[in-house]
């Protein structure tokens, strides 16, 4: 694999910079809450600045090559190196993780979860950011695994300490389930390592050597990775941790979980499992495709059955990640491009939906759909944002969600490498039906919560006669979008429109890398 060695410092600094903030915070007493929030914002802003610099220094004409490449000795005893690099596949996700963390920090300024105590909360978020960014730059399996696991613990504590009523159950389930996946994944990594002659853990080496492994062995190794990544995505039937974790997590946790953490699984498929085990991937692709489509329909049905807004949004992730996995399972350029686009789009859109859910909860102290009504009257702006995000989520063209969904459906018409055309065309039609269900659960949610008149239980406060006609009438507790929320949300909203109107912004970066990847996979399939 061609690599470009320039600005070798930039990725390491971008990844580990948050730790500086963590160190600093260690020496400041927890009672100085504002200081901690400020440090959190400044640190993540600095990280984002490095991210923007990375974007500027990135050579977009060569996005199929690994850039800012570093390969230095790390744990030589197990031939694992500190190998990092960034190409068109990882760049959008790497940058997204930085942007989301920064915006979540800003949101935290006004919206600490009820448990309070921002010092550990912000420290955990910063550590989380290190793990996320690291996972996207790692070009060595052990390094990847370490970062992948670093993510786990902060999220466990975020849910377990700052979560909702059933936080302990949810956090433990999240932790154990993901650990279970990781264990199998590690076994698969080690097996691949030994099968390829135990020479190196580097991605480039394994992608070359892995293709030469026996087909049957590839299938077994792929099975291990499949479970590890599928739990993380999550794919049906390994998804049951997700609704609990999402529903119980604090808003910040839900947003990060939806925007970035789930993508570690899909990214793992694209970056590790498929290129390293081409024949295993081909053998497993129909299974992935079928499970993905079951997830689309099943997730949508699950949404229709929900009575809690946040849990509904959580279930919708199962459906949306189904589209992503369907795209990946076709092993085509179209499909994988769509999947990568879909990851970012889903991160932005579902992240935004979780923000809205968090703000609704903050104001009404409930997310029960039955009790919410007339949001558009009490909070017209928030109501509009909810409507906008719902439309984006159901895949309206012109907004980002469409470009992950439609090309994925399209790609299933003609799967690559002689995969069964009949099967995939059936999957295509079922997946397309899933878009109808998506419209159903999202608009139904919107109709029930935003339309109509506000529930009297939230309008009980006496109010002077002759209030403005434009929905100015509200309870003192029910206020519309705050300035801090605007600051945190506007980039999400702008990005959803921008990528929706001009998707070439992202496709241009990803496509060369994906084309190279698919070529490489094709070379490994006899």
């Amino acid at each position, binding site marked *: 694999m061609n690599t470009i060695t320039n600005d070798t410092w930039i990725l390491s600094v971008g990844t580990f910079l948050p730790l500086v903030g963590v160190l600093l915070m260690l020496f400041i007493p927890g009672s100085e809450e504002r200081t901690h929030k400020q440090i959190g914002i400044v640190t993540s802003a600095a990280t984002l600045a490095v991210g923007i610099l990375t974007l500027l220094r990135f050579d977009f004409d060569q996005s199929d090559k690994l850039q800012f490449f570093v390969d230095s000795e790390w744990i030589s*005893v*197990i031939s694992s190196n500190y190998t990092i690099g960034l190409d068109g596949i990882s760049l959008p996700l790497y940058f997204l993780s930085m942007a989301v963390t920064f915006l979540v920090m800003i949101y935290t300024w006004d919206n600490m979860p009820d448990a309070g105590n921002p010092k550990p909360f912000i420290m955990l978020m910063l550590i989380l950011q290190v793990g996320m960014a690291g996972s996207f730059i790692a070009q060595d399996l052990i390094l990847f695994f370490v970062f992948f696991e670093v993510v786990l613990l902060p999220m466990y504590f975020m849910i377990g300490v700052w979560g909702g009523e059933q936080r302990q159950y949810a956090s*433990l*389930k999240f932790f*154990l389930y993901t650990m279970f996946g990781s264990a199998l994944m590690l076994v698969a990594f080690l097996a691949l390592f*030994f099968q390829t002659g*135990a020479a190196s853990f580097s991605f480039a080496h394994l992608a070359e050597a892995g293709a030469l492994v026996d087909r049957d062995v590839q299938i077994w190794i792929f099975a291990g990775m499949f479970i590890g990544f599928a739990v993380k995505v999550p794919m049906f039937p390994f998804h*049951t*941790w997700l609704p609990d974790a999402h529903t119980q997590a604090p808003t910040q946790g839900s947003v990060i979980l939806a925007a970035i953490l789930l993508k570690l699984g899909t990214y793992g498929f694209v970056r590790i499992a498929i290129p390293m085990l081409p024949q295993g991937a081909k053998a497993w692709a129909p299974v992935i495709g079928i499970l993905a489509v079951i997830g689309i329909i*099943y997730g949508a*049905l*699950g949404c*229709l*059955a*929900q009575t809690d807004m946040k849990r509904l949004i959580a279930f919708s992730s199962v459906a949306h990640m189904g589209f992503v996995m369907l795209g990946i399972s076709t092993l085509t*350029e*179209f499909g994988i*491009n*769509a999947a990568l686009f879909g990851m970012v789009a889903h991160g932005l859109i579902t992240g935004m939906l979780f923000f809205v859910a968090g703000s609704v909860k903050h104001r009404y102290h409930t997310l029960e759909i039955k009790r919410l009504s*007339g949001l558009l*009257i009490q909070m017209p702006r928030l109501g509009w944002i909810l409507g906008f995000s719902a439309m984006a989520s159901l895949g*309206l*063209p012109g907004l980002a969600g469409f*470009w992950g969904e*439609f090309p994925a*459906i*399209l790609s*299933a*018409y*003609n799967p690559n490498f002689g995969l069964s055309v009949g099967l995939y065309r059936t999957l295509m039609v079922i997946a397309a*039906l899933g*878009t*109808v269900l998506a*419209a*159903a659960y999202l*608009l139904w949610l919107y*109709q029930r919560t*935003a*339309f*109509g*008149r*506000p529930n*009297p239980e939230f*309008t*009980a406060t*006496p109010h002077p*006669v*002759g*209030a403005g*006609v*434009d929905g100015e*009438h509200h309870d003192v507790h029910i206020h519309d979008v705050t300035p801090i929320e605007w600051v945190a949300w506007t980039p999400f909203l702008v990005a959803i429109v921008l990528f929706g109107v001009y*998707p*070439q912004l992202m*496709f*241009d970066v990803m*496509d060369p890398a*994906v*084309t190279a990847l*698919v070529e490489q996979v094709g070379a490994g399939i006899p």
Partner: protein
Amino acid sequence: MTAATLTTGWFLENAWLIPIIPAIGFVLIIALGKRLPAKGSEIGIASIGASLVLAIGATYQWIDRVSSAGGGEYAGPISGVFGFARSIFPSASEAGTETYVEPVIRSWTWWQSGGLEFGFGQHIDGLAIMLLLLVTFISLLVQIFSTEYVSGDRRYTHFFAALTLFSAGMLVMVLAENMIQLILGWEIMGLCSFMLIGHWWEEQANSRAALKAFFTVRVGDVGLLVGTAIIFFGANQWAVDNGSNGFSIQAISGWALSGEASDSVLLWGGVALFIAAIGKSGQFPLHTWLPDAMAGPTPVSSLLHSSTMVVAGVFLVARVYPVFFIGFDIGSTNINLIAVIGGITVIAAAALAFVQSDIKKVLAYSTVSQLGYMMLGLGVGAWLPAVFHIFTHAFFKCCLFLAAGSISHSGSHHSFDMKKDMGGLWRKMPITAGTWMISTAALCGIPFFSGFFSKDEIIDNAHNNGYNLFYYVGLIGAAMTAAYMTRATYLTFFGTPRGAAAGEHHDDAHDDAHGAAHAAGHDTHDDHGHDTNDAHGHDAHGHDAHGHDDHGAHGPHESPWRITAPLVILAVLAIGSGYLNAPAVGTHYFTDWVEPVGAAVVTDEYSSDGYGGDDHSESAALGFAAPMAEEGYSEGCGYTTPEAGTICYAPKLNHAKFTWGKAAPSILLVAFGILASAWMCMGVFGGRRNPFAGLTSKFAPARWGHTFLVNKYYLDHLYERVIVRAVAHPIAAAAYWVNQNILDGVVNGVGRGGRRTGEWVYRNVDQRVVDGAVNASGLVASESGHAAQSIQSGRVNQYGALLFGAATVGAIVLILVNI
């Protein structure tokens, strides 16, 4: 190209600006609208006006371009606008142009995948030009109308924003260069339809109607996504060979007629795309959303749900017509899906229009029925009459809806119920009544009104192309149209005034559901109730359901000029637009300007070294029988594969020759429909003694039929109470039960099992065996003279665990290092 070089011009080359202007207008209205003096409506009107100017410019230059292709004598485009005047001049060449006029195509990279780049741009041909002009023109009139009609509404600004965005969406679709862009415009329209039907979302009925409309259309959209995918992969190879890609509309057309397209791909792609058209254009059996969509404000019904958006499905079929032409063998007289669905829709919707008492619902079913005519026309190979019917229908149906709005605004106290609140209004509202009559005449197809020239052509061409069944369907539909419109006209404008039309004022009789909602608002929460009441005081004007005080002081009267001016303009066009293509007076401008000529075009590679040698002329038949038409084609584009080096972009189409003799049956049937209906109405509603008075109570089969119609063929029951309810409740609940109890049950079971195993191991192995052994050894040790005093039995466990842990880690490291 054999003809002289085609002319082009700034307006044609930059037609892509036409949708961009309202799109920017939308953003400006949202951002600034509320702070402006006219609350954003001025931006909406200005942006649509600017687009109209550009569209007129583009139309002018397109006509220039067509004439430069060498068709007939040319008297300048302006004269064409005045159809009457033009007919005096010697007519242009009988056949019009003979060469295919290249559309003006421009494209910019929009996205890429797999190394292919896909564009965003414009595809300007006659069809696009016609709709650009139509949409901008009607949008402008409706926006002007709305400034009066919804003035004072609490969401006035949002209303104009959504109307403007709608126009942008429709225009994007109309000039779409490729299928993805078409989908973009198509879905933006769906969104605006949702926003505008649900404009008064405080009432549950409105928000339900909005949801139903979006959702039903979305069901059809599955076909759009799937069809686009099928066609893309079918056409892409051919398209790439010809320097394009499989989304490009021109490439799809060329590929479909190239003879290289597989029949099954075309058939299935066509079926899928047609399903989308069924959803969007309210064809049977997905038409049920359209009448419910009348819950939206009347200008919305007028613009979106009659004249423009709902023709999107028809437009889709007309746009990639070659796919359907070949896929469904339209050139033969085989009965095909499009014609069948169109035919069923014509009759089924017309029948429903007879039992409505809401004036807007009559018009809604009439729209469905007329859309059926357009589909039928496309299905029988009458492309041009169908497209012409889009054009004429837009004017008279828009006029009818605006007239209904005018009646409700000034005549019937915000009621749309013909039976309760109308009657005898022609005296009070002469302008509204006059424009209504003219448009009704056009809709019924009375000679010399525009509908006659378009609808009759569809019927005539169905016959001419050998589709005799659909010829009769068309005739029956025409009689039914005349009859139900006569009924509506009678109920509205004649007879004795009733309810509000008689000056009675009643608080909530016109809409029980809304009245009840108000009452609830007052009872349950005083504070809020007060607020809404207050708000209603402000927006009563124009709010269909809420106006109680505004017009309370006086009875029915004529509407102000901002309402009547659009009515008059539209009424003039309801007559005049027909003369653009009136065979009875010998005009065929529309044919010349809009219809793509089905002649093969020489591709660039071949044009230099000549073509048409004997080697290339092996034009194989495309696989269907020669048409049965009087004077049909059996070869040429759409029938035989084009010669090598040439490409067909449009099939060759027949045009029936108009004679008054052939038009006579439909004229007679329409006359019969009007007279019979008038007589029946006098009996049923007017109290005249005749056999039809009280028929449904006297005669059981009539009653059954009536009930069947009143329940809309029970389709809504099937959809809402069976399918939707089943999916939303038992099926979703079952899926969720499986999730919680089976999938999650396994997870929790494993967790619990793990804990129990751990406890058991701890209790039985650790505490009894291991610890037992340790304790025993400790006992031994202590008994042996306190030799091991330093080992305190409580800590032994910890030490053991530490040791064991260290050994494990060491072992792993050793294993790793050794290998």
